[in-house]
């Protein structure tokens, strides 16, 4: 039997040899893998002391940023063979390939005479042994985290083709126990990775539902400061706050105005406001202070969100019975329903890429976070399902969604902010102190 095989194989080989003088093997590679890219981020080199400490810190934050995206798998330092001592020498690529590092980030930190840090880094492809990118940045030492985030963004962008989102901040609602059982809800801000948290508003009034301007350090939020839930503007750079409609035409009654979302160019807001008990969608021009009514239905039209081209608005409405999502022109007019499933659809938010709308769905006692195509075609895709979901917020590059996740406890629900990627993977909790909700993602910091 074995003999037969051998002789057969020899025969075939002969045949092949004869016939294949000019043959070219054509292979269609139709599938691969999408595992996180193994990347090595050794400590950035620097003189002993501040430089080398920060060098280690920066490498740690870069690696953590990349890992948090779910697209990269930083390799444990223990595995490293080569010790990087000078980033201007070519690494010994073999040493990095042997530990399966596809990419290598090397960097250095120098303390300059004025006390600022000079940070340089290079990203190498270990297979082609090419430098893919490199940057030098300077910063006051306290700002080293932003340096690290900027570097992580550069690595991310070079290797994925997408803009990074690490050098961004998140405004959210921080919750703490209050007097007589009503929790205190205050706006807070932190870096995208949870570092540097601080409060933006006082304990004296409840603040909810922040939204970030896509073009500046400005947010809108909702507060009960004046009794009603009312929309406010908050300039984070000057600290100036004002009620949205203070200086503009007042709404007919002393009604509610809710979460105000920015037009992609930042000069216009879409907001749901109430007149005589009924909520409709309005457009508010921040420059002219003009308010224009866009919907006029006897049902509650709430939660408007602009498409990234500014041409359309998605909102949720009870006009069809239970709450569903509708899309209309940014100037109003007829609205097209885009969700048809059972349950309650709320919190639509248009993706920065434009093709998808994230939503919360409530059905049979469960909540889910999902996305649906903006034109309503195709099936909705559920990214997360659990006890409670609210307030999705897209990363600036449209790859990740932050959301409020509620976990059931006997003494009440515990709220935290979680992130999930567009494929429904890489579910992670954002490190916040205490309970947190209502995330709003800043644009990339300039």
């Amino acid at each position: 039997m074995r003999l037969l095989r051998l002789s057969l194989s020899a025969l075939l080989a002969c045949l092949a040899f004869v016939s294949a003088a000019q043959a070219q093997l054509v292979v269609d590679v139709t599938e691969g893998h999408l595992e996180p890219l193994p990347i090595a981020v050794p400590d950035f080199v620097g003189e002993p002391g501040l430089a080398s400490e920060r060098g280690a810190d920066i490498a740690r934050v870069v690696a953590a940023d990349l890992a948090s995206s779910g697209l990269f798998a930083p390799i444990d330092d223990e595995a490293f063979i080569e010790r990087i001592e000078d980033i201007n020498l070519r690494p010994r690529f073999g040493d990095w390939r042997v530990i399966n590092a596809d990419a290598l980030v090397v960097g250095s930190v120098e303390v300059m005479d004025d006390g600022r840090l000079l940070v340089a880094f290079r990203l190498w492809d270990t297979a082609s042994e090419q430098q893919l990118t490199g940057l030098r940045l300077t910063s006051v030492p306290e700002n080293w985290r932003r340096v690290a985030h900027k570097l992580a963004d550069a690595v991310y962008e070079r290797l994925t083709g997408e803009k990074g989102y690490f050098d961004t901040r998140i405004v959210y609602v921080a919750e703490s126990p209050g007097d007589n059982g009503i929790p205190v809800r205050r706006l807070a801000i932190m870096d995208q990775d949870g570092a540097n948290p601080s409060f933006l508003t006082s304990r004296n009034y409840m603040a909810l539902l922040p939204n970030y301007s896509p073009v500046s350090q400005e947010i809108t939020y909702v507060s009960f400061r004046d009794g009603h839930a009312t929309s406010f503007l908050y300039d984070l750079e000057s600290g100036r706050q004002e009620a949205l409609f203070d200086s503009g035409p007042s709404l007919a009654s002393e009604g509610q105005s809710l979460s105000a979302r920015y037009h992609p160019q930042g000069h216009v807001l879409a907001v749901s406001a109430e007149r005589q008990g009924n909520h409709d969608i309005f457009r508010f021009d921040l420059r002219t202070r003009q308010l224009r009514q866009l919907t006029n239905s006897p049902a509650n039209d709430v939660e408007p969100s602009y498409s990234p081209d500014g041409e359309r608005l998605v909102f949720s409405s009870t006009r069809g019975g239970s709450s569903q999502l509708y899309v209309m022109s940014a100037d109003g007019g007829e609205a097209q329903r885009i969700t048809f499933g059972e349950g309650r659809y709320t919190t639509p938010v248009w993706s920065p890429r434009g093709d998808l709308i994230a939503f919360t769905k409530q059905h049979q006692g469960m909540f889910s976070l999902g996305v649906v195509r903006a034109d309503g075609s195709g099936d909705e895709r559920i990214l997360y399902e659990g006890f409670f979901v609210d307030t999705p917020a897209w990363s600036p590059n449209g790859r990740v969604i932050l959301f409020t996740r509620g976990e059931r406890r006997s003494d009440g629900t515990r709220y935290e902010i979680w992130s999930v990627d567009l494929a429904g993977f890489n579910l992670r909790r954002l490190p916040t102190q205490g309970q947190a909700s209502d995330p709003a993602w800043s644009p990339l910091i300039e």
Partner: protein
Amino acid sequence: MKYVSVLSAAVLGLSLAACASKPAPVEPTPAPVERPAPQPRPEPQGPVAGSVQDFEVNAGDRVFYGYDRYDLTGEARETLRRQASWLNAYPQTRILIAGNCDERGTREYNLALGNRRAQSARDFLISQGVDPSRISVVSYGKERPTCTENSERCHAVNRNAITVITDGAAS
């Protein structure tokens, strides 16, 4: 969805008592006493006629709603009728109706829903002859729960419109 949409006053009283925290300033509320004729009449040791306590005890200061509903139940109408006659008896008083929701809904949705609840209570009071100018409404959505436990009973308690006398009550 098997949510109980109507709870008897006695059950409510019990469940309120059972609640871990009773944050609302108006708590604790004794179980409303069934009274066929809500005509306020000074009683030997009852609340002072025309007082906030009188309103809470003898008219009932809150009505409850079904899950995701803002229409009035028969029982809610009863309560609101008592509120209306009390308010008609003390025309100098002013009220604020606060709509509330359970926590099983998204925030903005609930702010709008709470508003509908308060509005439907307001509309009914007006239909019973209460002057609209005496009534303000507000929605707290799910932000001011009466009860914070994770139970359907607790959620039912939180789906309400609470009428608060803001002005003109006897003390």
